[in-house]
């Protein structure tokens, strides 16, 4: 990939990230009920995906890198699943 298209790619991504930031702040002031959290986390997820794909160039990395990153998120999911299955089934006072 040549230097110019790299530059455009990074600039467009930066602008998209800042637009998503503005969007998430705007959405936080709307009354969407429980969907406020869903929208906020969805926009965070979109920003995260952009950073992984463009800035960290995840598509160009080898399979081992995918495995390492996937393992991180997989164990995170295990931690959340086991912990929440405990806390969500208890009575809180």
């Amino acid at each position, binding site marked *: 990939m040549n*230097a110019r298209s*790299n*530059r455009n790619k*990074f*600039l467009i*991504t*930066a602008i998209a*990230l*800042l637009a998503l*930031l503005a969007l*998430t*702040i705007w959405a*936080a*002031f*709307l*009354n*969407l009920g429980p969907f*406020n*959290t869903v929208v*906020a*986390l969805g*926009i*965070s997820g979109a*920003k*995260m995906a952009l*950073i*992984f794909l*463009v*800035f*960290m160039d995840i598509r160009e*990395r*080898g399979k*081992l*890198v995918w495995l*390492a*990153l996937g*393992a*991180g*998120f997989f*164990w*995170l999911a295990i*931690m*959340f699943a086991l*912990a*929440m299955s405990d*806390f*969500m089934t208890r009575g*809180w006072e």
Partner: protein
Amino acid sequence: MSDAAIAHAHQFDDATQQRDAATLGMWIFLATEILFFGGLFLGYTVYRIAYPQAFAEASRHTLLVFGGTNTAILLISSAIMAFAVRAAQNQKRMALVIHLFGTTTLGVLFLCIKGFEYSREISEHLLPGNSFHFAQPHATHAELFFYLYFLMTGVHALHVLIGVFLIGFFGINALFTNHLEQQATAIDLLGLYWHFVDIVWVVLFPLIYLIGRNA
């Protein structure tokens, strides 16, 4: 960039293998960082589900202007770091130095703003402990929110501080080194670390600043 021109340590067959090993090492480190921050996010999730009103009340007392500005600063700094990584791969010394120092400057700015934000919150008695004071119905549970707030942003700020020092160090190094071609892998890995720190903040930002804003 021709890998053949780059020296490699004796335990590696060639420079490509050395680069791949270093890169994988950084990604494994980042995977452990996911779990490190994951524990904090898990604590946050448990208490937010348990005390939604207290968390909303407390979140309304965070300083959105500071947090929003800091988010923008980190996002822009990540883009500049991406340029630095490309400059290192193309062995463009001045571009590399400028982009590394640009990233460091924004990192320092982030920490300064965070410092002003902490000082405002401490003077408003929002730091958990004996002097904590929160004139709302759910003060005890709001203290939990602020405990998590200071812990999570504090640990994140420590990561930013480490990044600022490392990127600044590599910026000075890039200015004087006679072996710029040896720097590309290190700058790439440094970039991965910086982008990861950015990602943590991107997830942290709405959880801290944006709940209960519509009430």
